[in-house]
Structure formats: structure tokens, C-alpha cells
């Protein structure tokens, strides 16, 4: 019996989306195959990684990752610059966590002021994330989207309850949009359909299937993503073809595995390595399931993930 390469014939592909402006702009998506299977299709762009920063000192991040940013994290502008210049980030994800009513309830105008300062000092693409508070995000993202006009940012996250307004401001100010739904293939599709029905261009959407961390539901996200990707390729389903974005840092760095001291749990081994591998392994899982853009925190985990991506190409 002779071996013949078992190829699948796909008729769809993932949209290719450009982020940012100028020579530092990046492209994600565009593949016509499952991740890295070069024998049956193209994967023109490697998955990109955005480093997460926020508008408050990261007091609630575990030490392993907090200490890396010690010198810059009290100033989001310096932090953004550090990510671009020192860490050679592909992109930065600025989370406006202080706008949450339970945090500082920062006013939209103040958040916008910070966004414009960050955009002034870095030239890599910026992802602007709200606090995931349904009502507050409407006001905050509206104002910051206007401030960031012309920078081709990603604005997020639009959820079912607030997608109309957030999509409208993203559209009006020519940004890309992250649409997040709750870990379900049909909900993800539904939200994308709602967006296109209101006139949002589907090639400007990024789907966030709702990430999870290794050991804390990773398998759900993994399978939802595999199914979305198969629907995009096999059924040529436009509502399933936006690139996939996985916001993993915030899930990973709240797990016990990244926090508990070795003295407390000797059977878990060194805390430093454990935290870093937890984020990198989660990233590896998302990449194998089809992620095009990851939002991560620890530079060493990012470096490992990039090395893995290189080895997969």
C-alpha cells in the first residue's frame, strides 16, 4: 500500500485583517487551512501577540508577572513604550480597567486622554479594551474610539447587550472590533450576524470566543474554536470567518497555579516557572485551536510562544 497525503478540500478561508498604521501595521488571519498544516493550504500570517497593559498599577497581578513591569507600570504611557521598545511587542492591549464603576469609575474623557497619550508615544497597533462593564463600556469606548480615529485600532469588547453602540463608534471611526460571546459556537455566529445586519463590515470583526486558562475550562474554548474554524473552512460560513482573538493573560494570572507558593504546594514545583508555563501552555492550546491574536502578560511566556510559532511554520 502506498501512502498518499490525506488532504482536506476546504472552500473557505479566514479573513485577513490589518491592524495599526504605517510600517508597524500587522496583518492577522488569511489562512485557508487548519493551523500550520502547510501541506493543504496557506497560512500567510503568523499569530500575533499583544502585550496587555492597564491604566491602573497591576496590584492584583501575581508577583511573577507584576515584578517584570515594576519600573513602568505606575505610568501606562511608559509601560506602553517599554513594551514596544524593550520587549519588541507586535502590539499593545490597553485595558481601561479603572473605568469600571467598582474600580475608579474613571470618566470617559480621562480615559480618552490617556489613550491619546499612549497613541502618541508608540507606533505599533493598539487594542483598546474597556472594563467589560456593559453600560460603562458604551460611554468609554465611544469617547476613546473618537480620540483614536485614524489609528486603525481594535476596540473591544462588544457583547450582545452593547454591540450596537460599540460597533457604531468603531465603524464611524474606522477601527476593528472585537465581538465577544459566551463560549458557544452559535452565540459567536449570532453576534457576528447581528453586527453585519446593522451594516458593520464583517472583514473588520475579530471574534473572541471567551478565553479560559489551562486547567480551568481550556478544553471548552479549544473545542469551540476548532468548531468555528472548521465551519469557516469547510462551510465557507462568512459569520465564522473573522480571525480569533484570545485574551488569555487575565484568565491565566488569576489561577492558583500562578499564585500559590511552592512552600504551600511542594508537589507543584517552582512558582516562577509554573506561572510562565501556565500562560505559555494556554497560549499553545489556543494557537493549535486556531487563535490569530493573543493578549498575554509575561514577556518570557510570550517569547516561548513566539519560538513555538516559529517552529510550527
Amino acid at each position: 500500500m502506498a501512502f498518499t497525503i490525506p488532504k482536506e478540500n476546504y472552500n473557505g478561508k479566514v479573513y485577513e485583517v490589518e491592524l495599526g498604521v504605517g510600517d508597524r501595521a500587522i496583518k492577522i488571519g488569511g489562512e485557508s487551512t487548519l493551523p500550520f498544516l502547510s501541506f493543504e493550504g496557506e497560512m500567510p500570517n503568523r499569530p500575533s501577540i499583544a502585550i496587555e497593559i492597564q491604566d491602573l498599577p497591576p496590584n492584583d497581578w501575581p508577583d511573577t508577572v507584576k515584578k517584570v513591569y515594576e519600573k513602568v507600570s505606575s505610568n501606562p504611557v511608559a509601560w506602553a513604550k517599554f513594551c514596544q521598545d524593550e520587549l519588541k511587542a507586535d502590539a499593545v492591549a490597553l485595558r481601561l480597567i479603572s473605568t469600571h464603576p467598582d474600580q475608579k469609575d474613571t470618566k470617559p474623557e480621562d480615559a480618552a486622554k490617556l489613550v491619546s497619550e499612549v497613541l502618541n508615544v508608540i507606533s505599533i497597533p493598539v487594542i483598546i479594551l474597556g472594563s467589560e462593564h456593559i453600560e460603562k463600556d458604551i460611554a468609554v469606548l465611544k469617547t476613546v474610539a473618537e480620540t483614536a480615529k485614524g489609528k486603525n485600532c481594535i476596540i473591544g469588547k462588544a457583547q450582545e447587550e452593547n454591540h450596537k453602540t460599540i460597533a457604531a463608534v468603531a465603524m464611524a471611526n474606522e477601527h476593528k472590533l472585537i465581538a465577544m460571546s459566551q463560549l458557544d459556537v452559535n452565540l459567536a455566529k449570532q453576534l457576528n450576524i447581528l453586527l453585519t445586519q446593522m451594516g458593520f463590515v464583517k472583514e473588520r470583526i475579530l471574534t473572541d470566543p471567551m478565553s479560559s486558562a489551562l486547567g480551568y475550562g481550556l478544553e471548552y474554548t479549544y473545542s469551540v474554536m476548532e468548531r468555528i474554524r472548521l465551519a469557516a473552512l469547510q462551510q465557507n460560513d462568512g459569520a465564522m470567518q473573522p480571525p480569533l482573538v484570545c485574551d488569555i493573560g487575565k484568565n491565566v494570572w488569576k489561577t492558583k497555579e500562578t499564585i500559590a507558593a511552592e512552600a504551600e504546594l511542594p508537589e507543584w514545583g517552582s512558582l516562577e516557572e509554573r506561572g510562565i508555563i501556565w500562560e505559555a501552555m494556554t497560549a499553545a492550546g489556543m494557537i493549535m485551536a486556531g487563535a490569530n491574536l493573543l493578549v498575554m502578560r509575561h514577556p518570557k511566556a510570550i517569547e516561548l510562544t513566539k519560538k513555538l510559532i516559529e517552529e510550527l511554520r
Partner: protein
Amino acid sequence: MALSGVEIFKHLPKTNCKKCGFPTCLAFAMKLAAKGVSIDACPDISEEAKKLLGEASAPPIRLITIGAGDKAVKVGEEVVLFRHDKKFFNPCGFAVAIKDTESSDEIKKKIEAVKTSEIDRVGQKLRVEMIAVTDAANDPAKFASVVKNVVDSAPGVPLILHSMNPSVIEAGLALCADKRPLIYAATNENAEAMAKLAKDKKCPLAIYANGLDALTSLSEKVKGLGVEDIVLDSGARKAKDMLEHFTMIRRSAVKKSFKPFGYPVIAFANRDDSMMEALIAGIGVMKYASIIVLSSIEKWKMLSLLTLRQNIYTDPQVPMQVEQKIYKVGEATDKSPVIVTTNFSLTYFIVRGEIENSKVPCWLAILDVEGLSVLTAWAAGKFSPAKIAAFVKESGIEKTVSHKEVIIPGYVAVLSGSLEEKLGEGWKVVVGPREANALPAFLKSRGA
């Protein structure tokens, strides 16, 4: 090739005697084609037809057992490419490589690491299953002495004997053949000698060839030499080759019934950087490796890999859930706090683990919400004040404890007022932390 129900039907007795438990032979044939029943259920089938159908109905990837006794590792028998299509059945086995040139100190440390590798995660015991003794000296006596050392100090742990030299393998086998080690590996050059050893000692045999064409012919050659239990190595060591080869092998076996690839796959994830090695092994876990050999097994590394394996091999059809009831954690008394949460098993095990960590005995009231997490169950209306109240009332906890206080997860703080109302006179609802890992501090502060 897998046969259709109609093709199978042609070979059945066609008497519709119902002894198989199906109304007709055709119904039985259909079920057989779907691999939902064993051919042995029909007592009247001819031997000839049985052999023919047996081959056609065999699982697309052969089940291979490595080792003997209760620590034996079973791999293979996978039927899908994506876990959401059904599930992945037999979790890949991890092995640590021990070179026969390593110092006795290093060897001792590695054996110890394997023996103490077990962790408990959401109710399952997970560990590094195997040791791969690796020939680096090309010296049968040296190899045998390390095999002996491992057999003596890690009894029951399944072995992989790794050498391309049949006399080295033979020396190792002399000490452990009855323990069914995996022989690694037959190549095009040594196939006859290795196949003979595997057959004589009834051990599974891994075959190594460079690339998938060469692997196909070697697989056929070794099978032709009479070896049934085969494990495949296409020489893939880079992440890309691993992913592509393993995908092609799994697809060929499952979708095309390509017999030469109807066996489990072995992967080697050796890297100087242990973190990188972990990620490479992770690719193996997700994408179809059945045995993964590592060069080191630090605890942080195995925690991540064993967790990944558990995630990927979880049955996606069954929401993981535990039974609805009041669980006693520690030496709980009538004064101990009552904590309410959902029956999603991850939630249950994490909350329970944190209560144990706190050393504060508690009653853990687990409400059946069909295996959803707290937030999802709340959003779906399954973790509602009415349901929680009804459960607390019916559970009889009122007779067990002398207080009237329940602690609810911080994420559903909004429920507290309405729950208090539903529970009625005298009840108090306390809002606990959002994340379980804050429970120990929370419980201790209340105790003080």
C-alpha cells in the same frame, strides 16, 4: 476498509433469529457498522465471515498495552480527529528518558521523580507513567544494569527500552520481558532481529523510519514479520513535522482505514530549554501523540502537561458534574459554615480543595445546575434564589447545623437579598469571595 451496514449484512446468517438482541440481521449489521456492538453477539455467524468482518470492524487505531499489572499504560483505539466529534479515549502516556550514561545519582533522582510524580486534580490521580531507558553507550551490559536498577527501584512502572542495537535490547529484555516493555525501535536495517525479539517475548515494538513513505513500508514489513502490536515514529522532532505527520497519520488511519498507520504514535520532545520542551510535548498531547518521551520531568512542567492532557481527554459530551448533596469537608460540626455552590465538577473540586487548604471544616452544599459554573448557571436561571432556597430547605441541613447562615459565591452577590427572603425568617446570607482561591483567607478571618 470500514464496511457499510449493507455489506456486513451480506455475510450474516439472515435468519432474523434475534439471538443478538436485534430484531433483524440488518439491524444488527447497521449497529455493527456504527461500531456500537461486538460481532460476537451473533452466535450463528460462520468463522469465515467472522474473520472477515472482525478485521473490517476493528478500531482504526490498534489498542496497545505497555507494561503489565495495574500500572500498565493503554494507548490507541482513537476514532476521531477532533475531540468535539466524540472524544479522545486513551490519554497519552508520559515517559522520562534515562540514559545509561547518566550518573547513578542522576538516575536515582529521575526514578524518584517518577515515583513521586502523582498529583490529584479534580478528583483524578495523574502521573508520569513510564521510564524510557536509553542506550547511549552501545554496551549491552551497561544498558542491562540500568534496566535492572529501574526494575528494582520502580517496581511496576512500565518501561520503554530504547536502542537501535538488537543485542542491547536483548540484554535489557532478559531482565523485564515479562513486564511487557515497549521496544524502541525497529528500523529498516534491524527489522528482522527486532521483530523476532518482540515476537518471542510478546512485547510491543516501535518502528522508526524517516518520513511517512518509509514508515509505511516499514510498518508493512514488520507486520509481515508477524508483529501485531506496533507503535509508530516517523522521525518527526520539530513541532511542525510532529503536527503535520501526526495529523496525516491519524487522518489516514481514521478516515481512510490505512492499515500501515493504524497504530499509536510515539513522540520525543527533547529540548535543552525545559519550558520549550514542555510546549513541544503539549503539541503532542493536543495533536495525536499517544506516547511522549521527555528528557526531564520537573514538577511545574508535569503539572502543566498532565493538566493539559486531562483537559484534552475530557469527554466533551458529558458536562462534568458531581451529585447534588451536602458534602462534609473536614470535621464539620453543627457550628461549621455552610457554603453553597454549583455542581460543575471543576467548581466543586476547586472550592473543596480551598476549604481543605483553609483547615476550616465546612459543609459544602452542592446544587445541581446540570454541571454549569456559577456565573453560567446564574445567567441561565439555574442558580436562582428560589432553587437555592428549595435545596437548602430540602437538604435537611437545618437539622445538622445550629445556625441559619449560608455563604454564597461573590459573583452572585446580587442574589443575597432575594435569597434571604426565600429562605425565610432568621436566615442570613453572607457573600463570600469571587474566586475560590480567596476562600482560605475569608474563612480564617471569620473564624478569628
